[in-house]
């Protein structure tokens, strides 16, 4: 299949791995920001193919994972109101709040619907004028334009019974938070290709300069990822810290200007809590004053709901790259995809879920992989 099979070509993969091995002279820690990249890395076993000097740590780039517990509780509280039809992307339904998740709210009678696009939620609002339709608008810069276009659509159509519960977040402030933390181990970044497709990468050179870390815009196929890792390693070995683009077939420096205009028109930066990490200044987006009527938190008065995060779950340390999922005492014992303690185990993009699904524990795999013969 064009545009995927070429980027999974085994010979090319072996070639670039050889280059990587030739380049690396010491230990380096590189973080991939995006959860989609974490999955691809584990799905294709790329971490096993890299030389042992290269350590990949998995960043906070999963919108489901970083949505704070408090907001999940607010979502459930709104969803259980009799006049509400609550709509959400599928992944969000399984995220545990402090006492239940949206799935169990649905089982108890709440009207909760999975939608594939926020515009479907607007359609539901149009068809159910006697109901309040709320969309759980989570996401990074990639998803934000779609989320806000639903608000613009509702406004244009004069639909008054539609609102969004917003948990939209931005990558650059999270990178600042990680790099500025006292225990930071990250020496190079793979920037998220999808986010940069929308935003371009003009926001990153100042970060690279300030912390002296190379940043490489990277795609999602095995060859894309290895190319991003290779370019980052080349810079690390040479002591450079530039922002480079390894995903040129999708990303330009400026990004998608019309999508950025949609964001600027409707949203303004605000402080936001990240699950497990805490408050990151100006890391979120909220609707501007003139769109406040479409803000579900404003409409349903849920600001009194305040929730503390789980004490066992170390998802915060995992999202910052300080610990690996399999270093958590609850991993695979108390915490599994069926019974997740934290969002990194819930979302298919979460680092814990990816570890659970693809690699369980590394020693075990390597032990058996060497013993098993191909047929």
């Amino acid at each position, binding site marked *: 299949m064009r545009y*995927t099979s070429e980027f999974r070509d085994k010979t090319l993969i*072996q070639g670039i791995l050889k280059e990587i091995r030739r380049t690396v002279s010491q230990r380096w820690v590189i973080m991939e920001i995006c959860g989609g990249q974490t999955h691809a890395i*584990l799905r294709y076993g790329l971490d096993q*193919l890299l030389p042992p000097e290269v350590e990949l740590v998995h960043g906070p780039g999963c919108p489901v994972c970083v949505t704070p517990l408090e907001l999940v509780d607010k979502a459930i509280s709104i969803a259980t109101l009799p006049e509400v039809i609550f709509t959400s992307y599928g992944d969000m339904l399984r995220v545990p709040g402090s006492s239940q998740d949206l799935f169990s709210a649905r089982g108890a009678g709440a009207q909760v619907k999975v939608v594939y696009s926020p515009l479907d939620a607007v359609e539901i609002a149009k068809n159910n004028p006697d109901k309040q339709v709320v969309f759980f608008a989570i996401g990074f810069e990639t998803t934000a334009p779609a989320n806000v276009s639903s608000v613009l659509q509702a406004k244009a159509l004069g639909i008054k019974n539609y609102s969004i519960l917003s948990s939209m977040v931005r990558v650059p402030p999270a990178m600042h938070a990680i790099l500025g933390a006292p225990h930071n181990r990250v020496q190079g970044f793979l920037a998220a290709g999808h986010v940069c497709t929308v935003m371009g990468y003009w926001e990153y050179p100042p970060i690279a300069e300030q912390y002296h870390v190379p940043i490489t815009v990277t795609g999602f196929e095995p060859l894309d990822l290895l190319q991003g890792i290779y370019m980052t390693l080349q810079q690390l070995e040479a002591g450079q810290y530039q922002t480079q683009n390894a995903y040129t077939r999708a990303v330009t420096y400026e990004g998608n200007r019309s999508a950025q205009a949609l964001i600027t028109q409707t949203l303004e930066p605000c402080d936001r809590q990240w699950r497990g990490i805490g408050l990151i200044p100006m890391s979120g987006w909220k609707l501007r004053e003139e769109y406040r009527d479409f803000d579900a938190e404003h409409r349903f008065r849920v600001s009194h709901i305040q929730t503390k995060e789980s004490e066992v779950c170390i998802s915060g340390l995992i999202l910052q790259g300080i610990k690996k999922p399999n270093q958590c005492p609850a991993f695979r014992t108390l915490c599994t995809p069926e019974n997740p303690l934290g969002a990194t185990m819930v979302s*298919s993009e979460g680092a814990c879920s990816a570890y*659970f699904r693809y690699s369980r524990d590394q020693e*075990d795999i390597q032990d*058996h992989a060497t013993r098993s013969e*191909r047929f």
Partner: protein
Amino acid sequence: MQPDQNAFEQFSCPLPLTHNESIVIGHGSGGRMTHDLVKKVFYKHFSNPVLDAGNDFARVSSGQTSRGKGKIVLSTDCHIISPLFFPGGDIGRLAVCGTVNDVAMSGAQPLYITAGFIIEEGFSIEMLEKVVSSMSGAAQEANVLIVAGDTKVVEKGNADSLFITTTGIGWLEHDLDIAGDRAAPGDVVLISGTIGDHGVAVLTARNELGIETTVQSDVAPLNGMIDHLLQAAPHTHVLRDPTRGGLATTLNEIAAQSKVAIWIDEETVPILPEVRSVCELLGFDPLYMANEGKLVAIVPPEEADNALNAMRQHPYGKMAMRIGAVQPTPQNRVMAHTTSGATRILDMLSGEMLPRIC
């Protein structure tokens, strides 16, 4: 005399409307309307001497004559699907094939099917007849008789249009021991064709994703192919159809039951390009997509080639492939050699499969 005069002049309570177009609660009453429905829809299509006897039970011969040998094989399955009609099949064909296949995976010859229908008030009788006719076609293809059934009607809103439960009975004539706990190290793992077709066909038929495909569901009775397969590979250890949860989940079940490891080579698993594309687009893994006309066969290595050839000679097994082997370790796990040359664990599907966000 004009009909309307008749109605006016005669002294009588109003008769219930005949409701020839859609199901009403009365169709499940057990009374005349039920009988009419059974006669006009079910008997019409399923007619055979056992059913036509009209009892509350079906009395059938066991299908064997030799004494003390052979075993009865039973399986039951409930079928709910949205939409009821999808490219390549419908709930009727699914209800027959699903149960026929479950019985056939033991190596038994499926013989009889019973069917229970739960129908939502308001459901169109024309649609019901389409479903029933499709069941009849599938039963003929699988060479089984539908010998008993039941119908209940529930109030509007208490069920999603139509649910069908089928039970199948088969006769296992040989001393075959085909079961999920018999996979042994050294065995070869075969799949009878492309995976994920049914899952993608149904998913895109729902029209929620704005994606159109030409992918057809693979729903089919597999007992014919299994006959071929078992003649060619009489020492087959495991047969299983990878339905909900897909190939990865089925292999996990077998690995756990047999306490072995199943290693597969991802590149060898046959997947239609269109199925692969849809899955890429939505963030699904074809290894977890449902199939309704495929089987996994785990056979001793000396019979593997024969088994593969036998499947490939059957219309439902043309794309059969050897995809892996059984190993002693890591016990209870399914491992995949990835396309990039590394290994990964294929876990069971947990919970509902949900599209990724970005």
